[in-house]
C-alpha cells in the first residue's frame, strides 16, 4: 500500500447548483466517495480498521446555498492525468454539479477566510428604497439568534460581514456580500436572510411569491485575493 506522503494531491474545483442546493454537506461527502469509486479514480484510503476514501472539502456548503466555487482535495494512489480526472468526474457527476478545474494545489484549504456571496431576493414588498434601507441596516450592529450545539445564541452578525452592497434590479434585490468563512470565524449566509426577515417587511411569510437565492461566488484569502 502507498503511504500517505507518497501520494499525489489533487484539488477539484466544482459547482453545485439548482436542486442540489438541498443536499447537505454530509450527504455530499458520502456521494463524493461513491462518485470516486464509479469514476474509477484510484483514491487514497485512510488507514485503520474502517478505511475511508480521503476527501477533504473547503468550507462546508450550507443547505439552500448554491456555489460556483467549491473545492475538494483528494489523494491519488496511482498517476492519472488531470484531464482524465476531470472527464471521469464529469461523467459520474449528477446533472447539477460540474467540475470546473482539476489541478495540483499550491495553497492550503484552510487559507480560505472569506467567501463572496450573491444573494437575490424576490418579493412584492420591494420598492426603490429597499436597497438603501438594507445597506443601512447592515452597516449597524445587527443581532440574530444562531443555533449552536448548546442551544440558541444571540450574535452580532456585523462582526462577520466584511462588505455588503445592495441594488435593485428589475424589481428584485441583488446583494453582494463578503462574509467570514472557515474554522475560526464563519457566518452562514442564511443568517443574512434571517436578519432581513426580522428587521424589514420584505418577507411577510408568503412562500410562493417571496423567494431568495444565495450563491457562493468566490472564496478569498485573508488579503482578499482569490483562493485557488
Amino acid at each position: 500500500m502507498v503511504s500517505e506522503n507518497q501520494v499525489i494531491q489533487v484539488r477539484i474545483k466544482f459547482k453545485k447548483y439548482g436542486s442540489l442546493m438541498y443536499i447537505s454537506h454530509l450527504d455530499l461527502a458520502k456521494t463524493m466517495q461513491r462518485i470516486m469509486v464509479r469514476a474509477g479514480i484510484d483514491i487514497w484510503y485512510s488507514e485503520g480498521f474502517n478505511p475511508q476514501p480521503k476527501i477533504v472539502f473547503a468550507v462546508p456548503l450550507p443547505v439552500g446555498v448554491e456555489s460556483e466555487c467549491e473545492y475538494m482535495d483528494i489523494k491519488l494512489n496511482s498517476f492519472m492525468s488531470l484531464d482524465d480526472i476531470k472527464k471521469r468526474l464529469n461523467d459520474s457527476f449528477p446533472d447539477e454539479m460540474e467540475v470546473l478545474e482539476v489541478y495540483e494545489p499550491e495553497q492550503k484549504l484552510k487559507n480560505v477566510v472569506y467567501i463572496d456571496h450573491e444573494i437575490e431576493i424576490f418579493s412584492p414588498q420591494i420598492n426603490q428604497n429597499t436597497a438603501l434601507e438594507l445597506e443601512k441596516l447592515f452597516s449597524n450592529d445587527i443581532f440574530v439568534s444562531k443555533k449552536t450545539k448548546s442551544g440558541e445564541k444571540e450574535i452580532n452578525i456585523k462582526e462577520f460581514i466584511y462588505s455588503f452592497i445592495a441594488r435593485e434590479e428589475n424589481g428584485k434585490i441583488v446583494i453582494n456580500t463578503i462574509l467570514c468563512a472557515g474554522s475560526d470565524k464563519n457566518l452562514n449566509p442564511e443568517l443574512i436572510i434571517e436578519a432581513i426577515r426580522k428587521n424589514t417587511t420584505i418577507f411577510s411569510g408568503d412562500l410562493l411569491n417571496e423567494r431568495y437565492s444565495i450563491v457562493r461566488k468566490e472564496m478569498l484569502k485573508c488579503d482578499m485575493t482569490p483562493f485557488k
Partner: protein
Amino acid sequence: MQDISSILKSVSKPGRYTGGEYGQIIKNKEDIKCRIAFCFPDTYEIGMSNLGVRLLYGALNSVPEVWCERVYAPWTDMEEQMRKYDIPLWALESRDEVNKFDIVAFSLQYELCYTTAINMLDLAKIPILASERGEDAPVILGGGPCAYNAEPVADFFDIFSIGEGEEALVELANLYMSMKTDGTYTKTAFLREASHLKGFYVPSLYNVEYNEDGTIKSFAPKYDDVPSKVEKRIIADLNTSYFPTKPIMPFIEVVHDRIMLETFRGCIRGCRFCQAGMVFRPVREKNAQTLDCQAREIFNNTGYTEISLTSLSISDYSCLSEATDKLLAWTNPNKINLSLPSLRADSFTRELMNKISSIRQSGLTFAPEAGTQRLRDAINKNLYEKDLMNAVRLAFEGGKSQVKLYFMNGLPTETYEDIEGIASLAKRVVDEFYQTPSRPKKPITVTVSVSCFVPKPHTPFQWEPQNTLEELVDKQQFLAEKIVDRKIRYNWHEAKVSRLEAVFSKGDRRLGRAIALAQRKGMRFDAWDEFFDYDKWMHVFDECGINPDFYANRRIDYDEILPWDVIDIGVSKSFMISENKKAHQSITTPNCKEKCSGCGANKLGGDLTWCPKIK
C-alpha cells in the same frame, strides 16, 4: 411548475422532493406516447429502497416511447404547504403534475399504506373514487404484494397488476399506446381490453353480492369475455429477464442504500403463515454467472461499497457457494462489504460462516418463529432446535456475540406452553454461548423479537382467526414475565397495528368506505408510530358500520367464497386446505427440494426451479 424554493427551504429534508439524482431518467416529452407516474405511498427514503420499484422503473423506461417517473408521499410538513399554496403533487423527474400523466401506478407494499396512497391521489387533485373519475383522468393502476387481495382498495383503482410486473406493465403500456394511436382509446374500452391481458384485474368488471351474515354470496365477472380468475404473472427465466444495473443514486440517506442483488424468487420452504412463500411460487433462480455480471455492472455504475444478496431465504440458494466465491474474489480487494440477510439456521454452515466473518457483520439473525417443536411443525417451519443450536455455536465460534431471534405470537394452535418455549429457547442460546470454549470475550446479547401473527390471504392460514387484541396483549405480557435472564432483550410489536393489518389483509370491497373516510379525516402514514391511531380507526369502522372482528377474528369455512378467490396465484385451494389440516395435526410438509408436494405452481412454468415440469 411554479418556483417552490421557499417552500422547499421551509420543510424538513427537502432533498426528498427535488429529484436530480445520478441515474434518474429524463426523456424528451415530444418522443413520449405514454407517461407513467410511479407512486410509492410512503416517504422517499423508504420508496427509494424498494427493489421492485427500481426494477419496474427501469423496465418501463427501457421502452423508448414510455417515460416513467417517481412520486413519493410528501411528509406532513410538505403536505401542509402544498395544501396551503394549492400545489398539486408532482413527479420528481419532470416536476409535472401527476394528474397530467397517462397512467398513475401505485406500489402497494403493505396494508397500512392505503390511506397514504389515497391521500396522494387527493394531493394530485385526482378524484379518489374510480367511479367519479372522468375519461380524462389518468388510469390508476395498483400492484405489489397487496394486489393479491386488493379488494379493500378496489373502489379507488381502475386496474391491478397481479404478480411480477416487469413484463406485464410493458404490455399494458403498449396496449395503451396502440389504442391511443389507432383512436380506439376510451378508458372504459382500455380497461376492458386490459382485462384480457394475462395478470390484470379490473375490479369494476366484477359484481360482488353478499349474504345476510356478511359473507360473499357471489363474485362474478359482469361480462363473458372477462376472466373469472386472474392468473398471476411470473418471469420464467431470471437470467434473461430485465434487471436494473444503473439504479438511481439517492443523495439523502435512504433505508437500503446499497446494491441489492436479487438471487432468486420464491421459497422452497412453504411456511404456512407466509404469504411471500406462497405467492412467489415457483422457485426460480439466477445462476451465479448472471449474478456476478450484474453485481460488477452495478458496482461500476454506482460506486456502492455494499452488496446485499436478496431473497426470501438466502441459504436455500443452490448457487450460494459458487456465487459468493465469485463475488468475494473481487469485492474483498475493492473493499466492498457483502451481506447475506435472511439466513436459515439449518443451512448455516461453517463455510458460510467463514465467508461472513471475512466481511464485517456484528451479529446474526435467525427466525425460529415458534418456541416449541410442536408449533414449529404446525407452521411447517421445518427447523429443529439442534439446527438452531448448531448455527449459534458456529456464530459464537466465529466471534459473534449478538444473536437476534424472530418469533410470532398468536399462531394457530399456539398454547401458553409454546410461548414459554420462546423464553426457554432463548435461554438455551445464552447457555450455548457459555458452553462454547472458543466464544468471543464480549458479553452475549440475545434479542428476542416477537411479532403478532396476521392471517394472510393465499396462505394455508387464510381461514384462521387472529387472536383478539386482549389475547395478544396477554400473551406478550406472559412472555415478558417468563424472560428473566438479563442477557435476553425482549421486543414485541404493537398488537393494535397487527390487528388493523389483519382487517385489511383479509378485507373485502366494503372496507373502501372506511379508507375513504379515514383519508378525509386526515389519516395517513398509518405504518408510522407517530401517526398510527387505533382508536380513530375503530371510530371510522364504527361510523361505516364495519365490524373489524368479522375480518380479523372469524374462522372462515373452507367452502366460503373469499374476496381474493378471483386471484389465481397458481397454488391450488385443495393444497391450501390440506396444508391447513396438517397444521392442526402438527404434520410437516417437505420442502420443494426434497419432494414436490403438488401445490400446483409448476403449471405456471419457470426455469431453474425444482418443480417437476408439466409435460
